[in-house]
């Protein structure tokens, strides 16, 4: 269960308070629900691509539901500070910031590749449909992928910075 929580929400309750809070915001079932919803959305999109060559309303609805669900969970996790990273000193803050900064470029590459692959795959499978009949090449797929990768990596980085908590201020 811990591995599932870490996989889906990137956190794993460290003690009884965090476990109780995580359970209160529905974490235990939310991880399973999120995974099930993600698989259902993926299955629906794959089904649409192979059999209809367009994204059906059902898939869009599932996608919207998944997005709303994940945004809700992320907000609850933030609100209860379950994603907080404690820094013991100012030097620790600098070290953590540097760590997050170092991860930024890797994230950019990862998100760009994923977005480009997804974008290309969707055009490849939807190419026979009436609504998506125009051609696409690697460059026109890479540019939107890189734009998405840049902004998403930036959002992750800013979110990571927000997670750092100067713990000595509470002492």
């Amino acid at each position, binding site marked *: 269960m811990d591995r599932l929580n870490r996989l889906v929400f990137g956190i794993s309750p460290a*003690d009884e*308070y*965090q476990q109780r809070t995580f359970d209160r915001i529905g974490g235990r079932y939310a991880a399973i629900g999120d995974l099930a919803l993600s698989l259902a959305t993926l299955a629906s999109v794959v089904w649409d691509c192979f059999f209809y060559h367009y994204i059906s309303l059902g898939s869009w609805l599932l996608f919207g539901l998944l997005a709303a669900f994940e945004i809700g969970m992320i907000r609850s996790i933030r609100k209860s500070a379950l994603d907080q990273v404690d820094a013991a000193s100012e030097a620790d803050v600098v070290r953590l910031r540097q760590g997050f900064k170092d991860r930024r470029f890797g994230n950019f590459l990862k998100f760009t590749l994923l977005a480009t692959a997804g974008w290309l795959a969707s055009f490849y499978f939807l190419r026979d449909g009436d609504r998506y009949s125009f051609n696409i090449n690697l460059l026109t797929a890479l540019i939107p992928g890189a734009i998405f990768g840049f902004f998403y990596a930036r959002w992750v980085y800013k979110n990571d910075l927000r997670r750092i908590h100067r713990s000595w201020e*509470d002492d």
Partner: protein
Amino acid sequence: MNRVREFRKALHLSQLALANEIGVARQTVNLIENAKYNPSLDLCISLAQALHTDLNTLFWPPTLAAAKEDEQDG
């Protein structure tokens, strides 16, 4: 209000150091000190042991503790 902060400070421990000693997140220690979270009995015992005191001293409200002592004396 409990006396966790008072005892922690007397031992010159940071919240993070105390949290590491009893195996919880620092956030939990902070919430307990500010009476925003009711810890389990196990955690209370761990806290009392780490702070070299007992549960009554740490968590029993002073007025109630004094009344109980008076009752026992009288």
